[in-house]
């Protein structure tokens, strides 16, 4: 069951990563891309339509992570301590705290993407979207690397 949830956690993470990266690139391009180049097409997605999907995916992702967290605490962190892998414990702790803070950012993130506030909250929308993208990338990569060192059983 734990392995199934871990795989699901990874798959939802990939979807979230894709959606947030799409939205971030689109935001950074700053204008409607109309070219045929790959980056233009990538950034040309309707960035606003990703917002609800990102919020839902993030909540599901965090819930899955919270559910399998005890298995990490017992089956992975203790071996890390025995192997003196302090940095591995540290980066996972950051993953957990960043994810918690990102969850709290979601209501405001969704608000900044409302059409009527697009100009008023332009800076917040840009930076908060990039913060969310950073957190999701960080959490995905840390989870992947640590799972390679010592996976859940």
């Amino acid at each position: 069951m734990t392995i199934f949830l871990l795989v699901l956690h990874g798959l939802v993470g990939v979807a979230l990563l894709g959606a947030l990266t799409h939205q971030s690139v689109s935001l950074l391009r700053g204008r409607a891309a109309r070219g045929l180049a790959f980056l233009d097409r990538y950034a040309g997605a309707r960035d606003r339509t990703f917002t609800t999907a990102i919020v839902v995916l993030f909540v599901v992702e965090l819930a899955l992570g919270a559910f399998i967290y005890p298995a990490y605490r017992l089956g992975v962190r203790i071996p890390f301590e025995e192997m003196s892998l302090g940095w591995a414990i540290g980066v996972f702790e950051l993953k957990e705290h960043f994810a918690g803070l990102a969850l709290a950012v979601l209501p405001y993130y969704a608000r900044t993407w409302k059409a009527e506030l697009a100009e008023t909250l332009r800076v917040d929308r840009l930076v908060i979207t990039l913060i969310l993208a950073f957190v999701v990338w960080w959490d995905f990569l840390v989870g992947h690397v640590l799972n390679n060192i010592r996976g859940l059983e």
Partner: protein
Amino acid sequence: MNRSRFSAATFTAVFCVAYIVVFALDLPLFRYWPLNGDWTWGRATLQDAGPAMAWYGLMANAGIVALVAAFVVPDRFATRLLGNRLWLFPMAAMAACVFLLRQFFA
């Protein structure tokens, strides 16, 4: 008329501050002891119960504080005060997390 009194800006800002405070002072609402599936309030400890997990309790504590604030502080006020600067809260909170966990990277 605004349908909801919930202020997203207040929730995000207060959660970030409250989270760092409860994390730095080790003030979880409760702790989970995964070895036997036990729960304890606050910082109470259990003998021979294995490692404790405080993260759920930290989230709950910060969440309660932020929820109360989000229904008390009007959104118009929070947005006018913090609009386009609110990103500083999660950014500072993340930096504080790195600082508080620095012993793992020494």
